[in-house]
């Protein structure tokens, strides 16, 4: 079903709205939640929380495009849960992904949230200048939280080739951010 029609179903409070949401986004939402939480049952619970959050938000919100809105909602639900269950044992694959990205970001604490937002916008501008494939690799790794192996499988590439590509993109990002005036210390 087209995304526009799913929004219409949600506005009409139609009974099949959730099942259509699930058919269209379920697999990807589950993957994002699993990548962040590292546990299948938690990911299932979180995916259903996401559908409920979308049901409660739309309307009044009328997202266009729908897909990124849905994925952001799912990602936020997973991050919120992660924050809540800090004492729980879990696969730390998402930490690894963030740690990896941190290596190419400016050192020190950013003083305000607004600084972090500005950094994010600079990152997005940098990605705009990259090829579709490189953008895909970067965003799947750091936004969707996919493992290098999963990305390699999707792109029919060797894992090592994806790692090398990620290294280069991160090096490029660092260079770009330096030019933008970010400081990396000594």
């Amino acid at each position, binding site marked *: 079903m087209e995304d526009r029609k799913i929004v219409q179903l949600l506005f009409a*409070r139609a*009974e099949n*709205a*959730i*099942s259509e*949401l*699930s058919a269209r986004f*379920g697999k990807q939402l589950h993957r994002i939640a699993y990548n962040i939480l*590292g*546990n*299948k*049952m938690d990911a*299932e*619970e979180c995916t*259903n929380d996401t*559908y*409920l959050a979308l049901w409660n938000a739309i309307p009044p919100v009328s997202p266009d*495009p729908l*897909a*990124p*809105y849905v*994925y*952001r909602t799912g990602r936020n639900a997973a991050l919120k849960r992660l924050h809540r269950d800090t*004492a*729980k*044992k879990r*696969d*730390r*694959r998402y*930490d690894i992904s*963030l*740690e990896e*990205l941190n290596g190419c*970001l*400016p050192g*020190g*604490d*950013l003083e305000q*949230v607004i*600084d*972090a*937002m500005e*950094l*994010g916008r600079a*990152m*997005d501008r940098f*990605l*705009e200048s990259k090829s*579709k494939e490189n*953008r895909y690799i970067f*965003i799947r790794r*750091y*936004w969707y939280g996919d*493992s290098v*192996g999963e990305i390699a499988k*999707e*792109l*029919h590439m*060797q894992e*090592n080739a994806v790692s090398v590509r990620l290294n280069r993109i991160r090096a490029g990002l660092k260079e770009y951010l330096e030019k933008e005036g970010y400081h990396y210390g000594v």
Partner: protein
Amino acid sequence: MEYEEIITALEEISDKHIAEAEKPPKKRAKTFWKIAVAAVLVIAIGVTAMSAPARIHADVIAEASESRAMEWPNPQTYKDHDVWRVDVDQWNAEREARGEITAQALSGLSAFFREGNGRFLQTEKNENKLWSPVNAYIGLAMTTELTDGETRQQVLDLLGAESVEELRKQVSAVWESTYQDDSNEVSVLANSLWLENGLQYNQEATDALSYHYYASVYQGDLGSTRMNKDIAAWINNNTGNFLEDSTKGIVLSPETVMALYSTLYFQAKWSDEFSESKNTEDVFHAPDGDVRTVYMNKKLEQMDYYWGETFSAVNLWLKNGSRMWFILPDEGKTVNDVLSDGTYMEMVLANQWEDSKYMKVNLSVPKFDVASTTDLSEGLKDMGVTNVFTEGAADFSELTADSPIYLTGANQSVRVQIDEEGVKAAVYFEMKGAGSAAPPEEIIDFVLDRPFLFVIEKENVPLFAGCVNNPEN
């Protein structure tokens, strides 16, 4: 930068780029050849794996109950939104309640698991030793439905349960927490009771096994070739034929009037698989001399590194949410030292362990396929379960008022295989009647090139534990 700041920054990635990354960019035509070849291979594998289960000829007295855990409420299967919401709440509540009962069961079982590891994994020989704590737990728990008096009490005491009713609830929660059976991830427990033809049995007891222990109950001519084959077929059906080498040797003596079998079959992929191209061949220092073996390697992998008085450890996550721990005795210490110390088991079962550090690890794990068969009865007797194995003292009156029955053994056969993709393990349990300091560096080499221990746990339940003395055995 703090993680929260990175997450905030990532929130600024534009909708356009997030939507674009939903699917991989299209590749040039030549890639389709690769996809076509892969598809043919997958189909071929599918045909091989889908062999029909072997038929059991014995009379079925009671069918095993199926999992009673509520299935995840998949919105696609609901027409009514309100019904879905109610089911979501119920699913969440059920999961939480199961978690609480499992935690309670585990707290009563920790002594049994720790002591069992010490008794069943220690060895002076150059052999690999394996056991499945959860399988032994469930197998033993089943006997409480068939026994009475002191015989039953000894088992309840060992398993840390107050009553048969409490044990039923706990086993059910552990069973449901562990159970998983989808195409890629398997963690399947199965139980069965086999009775001699003509034995007058108590229907309540067999019904209780069927319902609370998910057990099938069969009756036939125990000791006959046909029944031996039936039992082997039942084990093979429930362990994906992974224990075929062991089940070929199942022969019950004609005096046998009852046999209990409990199986656990486990198959899961690593969260992050090893790459075969990074494998190396090197020396493993086995107790009776060096052997060459294949190592799977990960370079500069970020993970939690743990340590205790006598060991260091890491764990690898599997896609079904379980973990495999690798516990390496410190230089100058042996696996027996680590087993006697016992703290490693506290680490495995704890939610948090103070002596750990998140760091870069160069990991080398031998690829292995190891198996062992152990008679647990002597160890169980040492742990206080004596009556059930003693002629004249065993009280199986809850099962039958016919002839006096006692158990002649409690064998557990286990096989565990790990490779680049993941872990495959199975066990059957048969009972028949008749320290060091914190790591100084930021990067550490964790090379399992001498005897080591492993534990596979799911939701804190130890499924398998083993001591690998020689990965080439």
